[in-house]
């Protein structure tokens, strides 16, 4: 009895959605399209499938490569220029770079990892910090959206071409769960490596649970500690990706009020009024908040990685 009713509703719903997509502005779909990766059947660059893995380059992969290339080129250039100048006192951009390096070493790695291992783990932390910071910050700069405007008014390329898809809107690479999961996997591995280097392989796994307790407690404790082993990188993954996605969704949702109000009242003046009075000031405020979030999230990811590595090295039980 229920099935025909459900089918009818589904058909009606589908019809309604199609109608809305053709005529009106769908805020949810537009926002999700802007923050999500490009679909796998429409990648930016088609690459062949190797060993069952599709290597095609999507929006987020392109952003990842751009960020990596940018960080590598900038840091190498600054350091080489400083070395070539041959002066003991740094100047210009090298000052900023040294500030970042000292900040990461002295206030993130040293208090958590300890004096003995600080030089072993600072390079990894620095890589995390600079890479995540640049990926977050470049996602905040609407460079691809400006290119998209140019695309719309000046160039008019084909929508299926590389330029047409690349100007479809930039995204934050770290807003993708897969990217942050890969970063957290590095953390997961480095926790094990740190414990192994400090205590030996067997002792590191023994250190997970405190020794000298009554045996019934171990039945409870060992599963909890094994779960905690996987919860740490999982929480890192979700925190970074959700924070980056959340801010962008908030900005886009507030900006979409302009179009929603235009549609509701049927005239552009209503939308422009709401935009000037509410949307743009709020969006500016949230963008300012996002700049802080970008810095804090890079700091938090690095700090928590340092804390976890420190926990593997200095066992407190």
């Amino acid at each position, binding site marked *: 009895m229920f099935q025909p009713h459900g089918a009818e509703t589904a058909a009606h719903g589908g019809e309604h959605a199609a109608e809305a997509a053709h005529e009106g502005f769908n805020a949810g779909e537009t926002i999700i399209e802007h923050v999500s990766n490009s679909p796998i059947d429409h990648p930016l660059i088609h690459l062949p499938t190797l060993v069952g893995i599709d290597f095609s380059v999507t929006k987020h992969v392109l952003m990842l490569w751009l960020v990596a290339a940018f960080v590598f080129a900038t840091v190498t250039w600054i350091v080489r220029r400083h070395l070539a100048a041959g002066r003991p006192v740094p100047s210009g951009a090298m000052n900023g770079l040294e500030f970042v390096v000292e900040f990461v070493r002295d206030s993130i790695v040293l208090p958590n990892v300890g004096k003995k291992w600080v030089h072993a783990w600072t390079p990894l932390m620095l890589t995390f910090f600079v890479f995540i910071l640049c990926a977050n910050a470049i996602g905040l700069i609407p460079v691809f959206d400006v290119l998209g405007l140019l695309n719309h008014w000046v160039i008019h390329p084909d929508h299926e071409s590389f330029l047409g898809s690349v100007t479809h809107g930039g995204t934050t690479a770290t807003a993708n769960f897969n990217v942050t999961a890969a970063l957290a996997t590095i953390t997961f591995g480095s926790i094990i490596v740190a414990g192994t280097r400090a205590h030996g392989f067997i002792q590191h796994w023994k250190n997970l649970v405190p020794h000298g307790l009554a045996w019934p407690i171990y039945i409870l404790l060992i599963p909890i500690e094994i779960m905690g082993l996987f919860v740490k990188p999982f929480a*890192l993954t979700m*925190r970074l990706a959700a924070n980056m996605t959340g801010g962008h969704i908030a900005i886009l949702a507030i900006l979409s009020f302009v179009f929603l109000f235009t549609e509701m009242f049927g005239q552009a003046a209503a939308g422009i009024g709401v935009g000037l009075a509410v949307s743009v000031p709020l969006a500016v405020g949230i963008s300012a908040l996002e700049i802080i979030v970008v810095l804090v999230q890079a700091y938090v990811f690095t700090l928590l990685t340092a804390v976890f590595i420190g926990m593997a090295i200095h066992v407190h039980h």
Partner: protein
Amino acid sequence: MENLHFFGAALGLGMIVIGAALGIGRFASAAAEGIARQPSAAAQITAAVNLPLFLLEGVAILAEVFVLLIVLLK
């Protein structure tokens, strides 16, 4: 009755906000009290508050992701 999951998601979101706000509020008040009593230890108190604050934020964010999954995946 079909859209009941929206109800649950909205309720869950509100409860997450209540919990996270209570937690962060307690952190802030304790840190402010500590700094007022011992202004010279401000840097240490801030450093000690930072880590649990981020862990708390992580839990709230995780819950929000699951709420989003309820809405998107039904």
